[in-house]
């Protein structure tokens, strides 16, 4: 897991009583917590239960977190523990065993948590980078996110672009995305660490 420099300042600010910083922490890591709940096949009320316990726990431990950069790992482990607690409490233990690889035993889920950490970290970098893109690029790329993107003709008329310029603009915007600080840092760390998802 590469470091997440933004989180250090957020944790310090939240610790000093800045509600905005707290909100940003939650927004930033909600997909990680949510993703792990989903991997444990939790439905809505249970996932909400886990989420609340995780955030409350973080809020209470905010002052005690020695290494803010380790926050994603801490959140992932806490979420895993809470998922197992909820599944145990609701007598759905067999679901845990089905979800979790056999070799990791009844209290497993470590591989699953590692995978989600990795995926969430990558997706966080991509979303952050997207936010750093100029609006024109955000508008164009977001129209291409759908499973079946609209035809260039439609995109062109929506954005007031010539059809012939959409392809080159898309290419330029993706190049810019790679250079956005959030993704550039991720790529550098990932390339440095060798093969990485």
């Amino acid at each position, binding site marked *: 897991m590469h470091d997440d420099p933004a989180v250090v300042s957020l944790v310090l600010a939240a610790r000093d009583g800045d509600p905005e910083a707290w909100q940003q922490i939650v927004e930033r890591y*909600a*997909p990680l917590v949510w993703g792990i709940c989903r991997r444990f096949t939790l439905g809505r009320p249970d996932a909400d239960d886990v989420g*609340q*316990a995780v955030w409350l726990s973080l*809020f209470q431990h905010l002052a005690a977190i020695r290494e803010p950069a380790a926050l994603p790992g801490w959140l992932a482990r806490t979420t895993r523990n809470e998922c197992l607690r909820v599944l145990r409490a609701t007598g759905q233990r067999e679901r845990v065993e089905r979800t979790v690889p056999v070799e990791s035993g009844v209290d497993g889920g470590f591989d699953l948590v590692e995978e989600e950490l990795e995926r969430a970290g990558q997706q966080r970098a*991509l979303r952050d980078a997207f936010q750093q893109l100029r609006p024109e690029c955000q508008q164009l790329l977001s129209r*291409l*996110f759908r499973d079946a993107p609209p035809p260039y003709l439609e995109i062109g008329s929506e954005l007031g672009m010539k059809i012939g310029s959409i392809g080159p603009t898309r290419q330029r915007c993706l190049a810019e995305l790679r250079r956005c600080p959030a993704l550039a840092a991720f790529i550098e760390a*990932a390339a440095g660490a*060798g093969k990485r998802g």
Partner: protein
Amino acid sequence: MSSDWWHDDVALLARMAEAWHAGQEVPPEFVAAGTAVWVPPDLDGELAELVYDSLREPVAVRTDTAALRALTFASASQTIELEVGDGVLRGQLVPPTRGEIEVEQAGGATASTTSDGLGYFTVASVPAGPFRLRCRAGSGSDVLTSWITI
């Protein structure tokens, strides 16, 4: 997951789309519940820490009221005794104080009650999920218990 996906436009766009959808998938209420956990640092409030929990005592030491859960919180000026049984939360402020007791949960205050002249109070239903009590008595500062789950 293959490595170096970022070199290729098609792969990068696909990952970007996935990341964007993953962000959209998180229900707004799931995030809102997390942000609601925040409570401003209560500079006037006095924190009463958990100093006793019957659940943490070895079974042999437990008294015959095993069905009850007993908790004690203490701050410098106030002790709060709690007992849970039959779905009801009973408590006493020591030293005895007349005051207002609020149950706070992640979303804010969910119930309130008052203590009598002997400091006794009752919360009609045990809160589901994590909660804490805020005790407001007379002119003194609020006393806040740490978060607990029954």
